[in-house]
């Protein structure tokens, strides 16, 4: 036979149960007994005989407290993680440029020498290094925004200007026959942070490019739909399977081949959109293409 105290003690030994709030139900009313229970970690007593209302009231207040505790814990965890990641991102950026500038000197100097000029292997390997560095760089760029602590400036943004320059930059990098076009009315403005919008659109466009295997089309459009401005990035690429759709915005979820995707792009897109108070939606059909919609409320 085990009494309530012993039961509580046993249960509390288990790591998984030790944070569960414990209520003693008792007819014993001496001060000593009460202190004994509270001292061992119970949060309250209910004395017999009790009313069901009293019981429900106490339990619901405990649940409430527990939820707040959990939320604070999560918030704290996220803030700590954010600080850590932000700090690391910042700390990586500096040594990275200490690598790139001298490396560029070495590359340029070697490739200007007659002996190395025609060395295809050397060119290829410098290419590998460069690609790797660019990936680290863009990852850091993303994390920097994600965990940015300070006030985010908002301003009137001309969608046409921004979308025009982004598509122009990406058009210059295309290695596949992809038609990248945009359609935005010139008087189209939204309120938001420019760098965040640029980051979101860059991630979506670069995903769209990756989704197209051979040739295809990517279009970026913006239009007013009721109280929203809908910004759409549409591609005629491979699409996303129904099974994958629910996980699409999760951190570290990727279907790209190993070494190509970080699984952070869409997660960052979603987090940044939330930060701006924008909604994000995705429509996709396997083999046909994908469309992302950012809904900006005016």
């Amino acid at each position, binding site marked *: 036979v085990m009494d309530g105290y012993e039961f509580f003690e046993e249960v509390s030994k288990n790591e998984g149960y030790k944070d569960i709030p414990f209520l003693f139900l008792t007819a014993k009313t001496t001060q000593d007994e009460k202190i004994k229970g509270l001292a061992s970690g119970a949060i309250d007593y209910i004395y017999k005989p009790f009313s069901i209302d009293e019981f429900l009231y106490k339990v619901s207040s405990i649940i409430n407290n527990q939820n707040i505790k959990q939320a604070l814990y999560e918030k704290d965890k996220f803030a700590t993680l954010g600080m850590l990641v932000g700090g690391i991102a910042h700390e990586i950026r500096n040594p990275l*440029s*200490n690598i*790139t*500038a*001298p490396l*560029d*000197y070495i590359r*340029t*100097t070697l490739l200007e020498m007659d002996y190395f000029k025609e060395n295809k292997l050397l060119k290829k390997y410098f290419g590998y290094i460069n690609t790797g560095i660019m990936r680290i*760089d863009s990852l850091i760029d993303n994390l920097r925004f994600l965990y940015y602590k300070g006030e985010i400036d908002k301003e009137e943004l001309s969608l046409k*200007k*921004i979308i025009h*320059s*982004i598509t*122009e*930059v990406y058009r210059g990098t295309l290695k596949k026959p992809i038609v990248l076009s945009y359609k935005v009315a010139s008087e189209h403005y939204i309120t938001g942070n*420019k*760098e965040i919008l*640029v980051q979101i659109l860059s991630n979506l466009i670069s995903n769209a490019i990756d989704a197209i295997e051979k040739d295809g089309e990517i279009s970026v459009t913006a239009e007013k739909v009721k109280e929203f401005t809908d910004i759409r990035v549409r591609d005629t690429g491979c699409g996303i399977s129904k099974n994958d759709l629910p996980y699409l915005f999760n951190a570290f979820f990727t279907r790209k081949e190993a070494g190509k995707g970080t699984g952070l792009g869409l997660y960052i897109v979603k987090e940044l959109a939330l930060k701006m108070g924008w909604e994000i939606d995705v429509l996709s059909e396997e083999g046909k293409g994908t469309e992302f919609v950012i809904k900006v409320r005016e």
Partner: protein
Amino acid sequence: MDDIKIMFIDDEEIIVDVVQQYFSEHNYNIKVYTDGEEALEELKSNFYDIVVADYKLPKISGIDLLEEAKNRKAYAYGILFTAYFNDREVVDTALGKQLVSKVVEKPFKLDELKAAIDEAILEVKRMKQEK
């Protein structure tokens, strides 16, 4: 090439070091600065044919530096380098006010920068002949 004076300004010591090394080896007459205000002081007393400046500098922005130097007719040809396309408006301002004739995107490669500077040198030489 010694007759064409070039000034290069960036706040990152290592970039400045590498640029100085590379261009000196290729016989360019180049002077580098990490401090925008020091660079401006130098421009107040000496004329440069080409000024290459980063937009983001501590203390004084690349644009302000170029504007001040332009007012004093302290250089002939300006090149601005700037990170990515985020600074589009900065670029528009710099081009609009004719502070610079060319924009190089960051991160740049030395050979890209060299090509931009070579182009600037040709232009400067052409301007000198016209005079």
